[in-house]
């Protein structure tokens, strides 16, 4: 197990370093001069030159990359070129909102999707299975931004039950929860379908295994067979899926953060890409990459703990 952990950690470091390099190249390959975009048509050549100097844009690309990597290794994600604030500070303010949204969205999706998948597998071709199948495909197929707008129109504009803007007042948990409901619903809805389909398929496969048949032959109750012997095995690919999904949501909640005007990492990346505020974009994407790697690492460790066979597969 320890050797597996060591190899897995080493791989994670390599992935992060490669991602940093790829990110840097991609950001600087975006068409357009960041200076003229950021400052707009009013900017004089003097203003443009000062801005370029401030952002090190007048330096060779390789030099800019070295500056960036050196700073990252020292824990310095840079400085926002407009506000002069620390990028790390900005991101530390935004990150909790994104994590909260991702956890809430995946949380309710797991709470609903896994039981639905189990029920479908336990009673295949029953009305529960058919309804779940239709709903799963439906929720996967409907784009989340459409769900967001629909939810706003129904619950915020027509019924006025739920708020639509922001993340709620600090210190007021009830208000924050009310502000979380619609975006978490919109982000998580598709995941209900994904998880139900995944668990159903895995469960059907596991339920046909010999050891399950043996368990039944020994007279174990259906509840015990399902929850003690089938589900822990069937849920393994789902754990990996949830890990990848959670990592993806760290930047993938952007649509909900924009539509619901919630603070968050996705939204700050979106805003700063438009503003060509490179230090913030680099820092934010780097943070999401690291978190993504960490989350998938945790998922892999859980899977390897539950199923020792995967320890030899790396």
């Amino acid at each position, binding site marked *: 197990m320890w050797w597996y952990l060591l190899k897995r950690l080493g791989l994670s470091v390599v992935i992060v370093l490669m991602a940093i390099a790829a990110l840097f190249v991609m950001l600087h390959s975006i068409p357009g001069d960041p200076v*003229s975009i950021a400052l707009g048509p009013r900017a004089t050549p003097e203003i443009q030159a000062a801005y370029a100097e401030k952002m090190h844009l007048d330096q060779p690309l390789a030099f800019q990359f070295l500056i960036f990597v050196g700073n990252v290794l020292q824990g310095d994600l840079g400085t926002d070129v407009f506000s002069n604030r620390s990028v790390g500070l900005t991101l530390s303010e935004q990150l909790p909102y994104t994590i909260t949204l991702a956890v809430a969205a995946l949380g309710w999706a797991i709470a609903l999707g896994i039981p639905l998948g189990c029920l479908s597998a336990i009673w295949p071709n029953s009305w529960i299975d058919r309804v779940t199948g239709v709903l799963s495909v439906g929720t996967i197929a409907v784009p989340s931004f459409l769900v967001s707008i629909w939810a706003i129109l129904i619950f915020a504009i027509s019924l006025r039950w739920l708020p639509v803007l922001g993340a709620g007042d600090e210190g007021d948990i009830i208000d924050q929860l009310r502000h979380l409901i619609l975006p978490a619903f919109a982000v998580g809805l598709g995941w209900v379908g994904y998880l139900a389909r995944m668990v159903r398929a895995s469960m059907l496969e596991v339920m046909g295994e010999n050891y399950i048949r043996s368990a039944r032959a020994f007279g174990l109750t259906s509840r015990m067979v399902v929850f003690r012997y089938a589900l822990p095995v069937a849920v393994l690919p789902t754990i990996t899926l949830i890990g990848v999904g959670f990592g993806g949501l760290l930047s993938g909640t952007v649509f909900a953060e924009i539509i619901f*005007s919630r603070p968050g990492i996705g939204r700050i990346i*979106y805003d700063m890409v438009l503003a060509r505020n490179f230090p913030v974009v680099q820092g934010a994407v780097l943070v999401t990459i690291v978190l993504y790697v960490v989350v998938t690492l945790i998922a892999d460790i859980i899977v390897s703990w539950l199923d020792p066979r995967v320890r030899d597969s790396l």
Partner: protein
Amino acid sequence: MTKITQTRRGFLQTAAIAGAAGLTGTFPGISWSAEGDTLTVRFDREMESLDPGFYVGGHPPNDVNWCIMPALVHFGMVDGQASWVPSPYVESVEVVDSTHIDFTLKQGLMWSNGFGEVTAEDVAYSYDRMTESEWKGDYVAYERTEVKDKYSGTIILNQPFAPFMNLTLASGTGIILCKKATEEAGGKYTIEPPATCGPYVMEHKQAQYVRLRPNPDWTGPLPAFANIDCIFVTDSEAGALAFEAGELDCAKITSTSYARYLKETPPGAALTVAGALQYMWMGINIENPKLSDIRVRKAIQRAVDIDSIVQGAYSGTAEPSYGIICPGLVGKRDAAGYSYDPAEGKALMDEAGVSGLNLTLRTLNSPERLLAAQIIQVNLAQIGVTVEIIPLDSGPFWEMGQESKGDTYKDMELWIMRFGAGPDPYEATQWFIRDQVGVWNWERWSSDEFEELYKQGIGETDQAKRHEVYVRMQEIMEETGGYVWLTHEPEVFIHRDDIDAKFAPSGEMQMAYFAPK
């Protein structure tokens, strides 16, 4: 629907009005509103900096600065027209002659953080500082401020500069900083002013909100709303939905939403057009070999149906444009020197001996611009020109005509462009002088007469003569065949109809002047 118009009030004329009326600025409220009476507005982007010398400008920094920082003058209404008025921070502001402006500050206005009273020294420091700033263009005529005593002084210009009161002092770059605090902060700041003085104090949380709360040290007149919450809502449609959900009291909206709300305004809502200080045109590269014959360019001018663009792309909400000077400003033309006449355009093409012409039309990839481009594509087909539309992201779009960014400018043929303007014609014309060829003058023409008129327009204080100057400058531009005037897009806000909302001509919210009806 309310429509705010603005005019370039006479430099001396407005002063006379203000002086005669004994006007001094005041906020509308007589006391703070009841607890919980909060104005909630939309900010469409995050603030990069509040420092008037080094900010990106416009909305939202100006909206905030006008609530927390002193200024000698603000925008207000004089004779039903938007113009400068003395601010609540002054006893008086008087334009003595074309190069001297006297002012006297109110006493007892205190800077935050223990930096003492607002003084004439602060005024002098603030304006002197602007001449070395990134916005020194606004202070091109500023010479110095002569401090008479603690509260009064005289601003001295180095030449008559007609736009000084409206373009310089009343705009966002005219705010006053605390000399001592700014110097202690190193001479500049970003989003945390080292000292403020206004009816509100600011609390800012990045990408979330700016909260304006009562300033306990403020001794001046009180605004009607005790609290203002400015929520960052970057997506325009999300802003409109939030207004409909009752979570915003005022929000800037797009032309699309404007057209929708004109047909059916939500209950309890009102629409205000805060100005149309945007000018959009189709540019033609006169140096491109395909377009070097002026008859071809004039044919293109006559082939574009502006009414179709106004209706098709803007649902009738934009105003047709006849030049670069925006509605309500001196120099605004009543008509272009050409009109939609595809038959005449075809005849010009035949006269030039040009047929089977293929051209590219570059545009930003926004829905309105793409629709306008498609209408132009159909229009030009009538005179035998085949147009290929090239939609572009803002990155490549804003650098394509700049010589310093590569050689794309040589390949440019047609493009749809829009600039924002300040409340004076001087600002719009500055981008088309000879020095701007290859910078922002992408049509790549120049004219000695235009250069001469540009200088004349800056110093001319007679409004009738100024009008003639700027009209002639637009005629010169049009005669190059490099411009097809398109529209002036309005800045539109939707707000609660029980709120008297106030806006600057340049489209920023004057939130301290908002009041319940």
